[in-house]
């Protein structure tokens, strides 16, 4: 075992060196509700997939080999395909209940879930471009709280409330989604921010 440990140190260092280079360019991946921050999450997740089995909406799936070795087998979801319904109609968040290692930490209320932050791209959002569209507002589990309308009837995201569930992204009718969930967005209190485009840029900005 001693030899193995030594080899582990050497190979591990090499692997982490390579992997950190690779992950710097990869975009943020949406994690299930209650997930610890990415590093702690990947430490605690045993990739068993019980959260995937527990999800009543079929939202979650496990990542395949394409996303980098560290993330293989960990749960994720694509908001534009199936968003997280925050277990509406259930007593608790079932994926969190299913997680044996608490890689998905307990959340007192679905409102406290912070998967990411919805970010509206005002360049392509229909409501910002003269059309009448309230798709995201209708889809949002907390309308008039997480997504509000200003006096021009244009939506904006309230960063303190938004759970990042992705229902707005799922509902958005534009071909390129004009509202996307940004995992790494910094929450700025008191209103919305405009961002050029969606996922991936936030991570680079933070370094």
């Amino acid at each position: 075992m001693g030899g193995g440990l030594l080899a582990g140190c050497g190979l591990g260092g090499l692997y982490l060196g390579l992997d950190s280079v690779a992950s710097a360019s990869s975009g943020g991946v949406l994690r299930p509700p209650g997930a610890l921050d990415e590093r702690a999450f990947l430490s605690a997740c045993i990739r068993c997939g019980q959260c995937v089995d527990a999800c009543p909406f079929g939202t979650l799936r496990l990542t395949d080999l394409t996303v980098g070795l560290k993330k293989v087998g960990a749960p994720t979801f694509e908001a534009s395909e199936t968003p997280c319904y925050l277990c509406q109609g259930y007593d608790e968040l079932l994926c969190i209940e299913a997680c044996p290692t608490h890689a998905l930490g307990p959340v007192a209320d679905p409102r406290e879930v912070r998967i990411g932050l919805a970010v509206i791209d005002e360049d392509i959002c229909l409501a910002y471009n003269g059309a009448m569209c309230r798709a995201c507002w209708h889809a949002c589990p907390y309308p008039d709280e997480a997504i509000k309308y200003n006096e021009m009837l244009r939506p904006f995201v309230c960063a303190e409330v938004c759970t990042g569930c992705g229902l707005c992204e799922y509902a958005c009718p534009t071909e390129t989604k004009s509202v996307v969930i940004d995992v790494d967005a910094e929450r700025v209190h008191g209103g919305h921010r405009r961002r050029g485009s969606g996922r991936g840029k936030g991570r680079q900005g933070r370094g």
Partner: protein
Amino acid sequence: MMTHHRKPEHPGHHAHGPVKRPLLRRWALWRRVTAALFLGALVCSQFEWFPWFGGSTAGTRLLGVVPFVDPLAALEVALATRHVEATVLIGAGILIGAAMILGPVFCGFVCPMGLALDLNQVVRRVFQRVVFRKKVRTAMPTRVPNSVRYGLLGFFVGFAALYGLPLFQTVSPINLLSRGLVFGVWGGLVLVGVIVVVEWFVPRLWCRALCPLGALYSIIGRWAVLRVRIDPHEAGKIRCQQCQIRCPMGIPIMRTYTLGKELAVWDPSCIRCGDCIDVCPRSVLGLRLTRFPEKTEGEATGAVELTVGGGQLNGASKARSGGTLVDPLDHSRSASRAETGGSL
């Protein structure tokens, strides 16, 4: 025209041994059934109407209540996060407790990778027999030192402790296979496929030489009471060596009996698959609960009745080799084997 009437020759047909256990009494059948049932339960648990085993081999939950956590996953996560969840403790504790009593039965009776490689071997044997008209293997698989498996175990455990990542859970072919089948993430099956192809040429390489989970189970089950027992009334009457040839882990099964008079297979890597029991023509072997090291040695004779034949064997082999014990089952010593075998 003539070819239709020619009966196919089976040169090896009669050489397989006179005795073959009835199908329903073969361990090979039942362990494949249990492994397939478990895998099937994992797959079916995807659907809401079958909530038996959610998750995969890394961690499941029986009926959504009783947790099971892969001991290696639990160890890795505990080291990676420096913290042990109650669920992990219970889930791994159940399996560790079971393995302490029953040994690494997981490998033989549950592991989906074991099932896949087992069936791979069946296909290979049938293929060789039908296409190449070749008999089944006649030599023992080469033994890979256990230190390789333990070294790999050390690597993954050390990796988790140092870098905070349960790496084996991401790359383990066991998990890749079960995740692939259960959750449809097919990418991981490439590695499984590679192992299956390699094992066509080097049988049971993964289990025998590499699997860190099997190594951990071997350590946990070091003093397990469920063992392959050797019946001293039957042992040593014929020296067919079928058990050792068939053993997927390459264990020289009868060696400890002939040399150390041990009445059970004491090798930690034994996965209790029962292949040796199935091929044994004299029902020498059996999977039984065995008391802690049981020998037929002098002082231990009170506990175990010795047959006259067994006593002769002990005395004779010692006397003949003049103190240094000669392994009568060693291939390189076929002459001495014939001699010893003849005397019995």
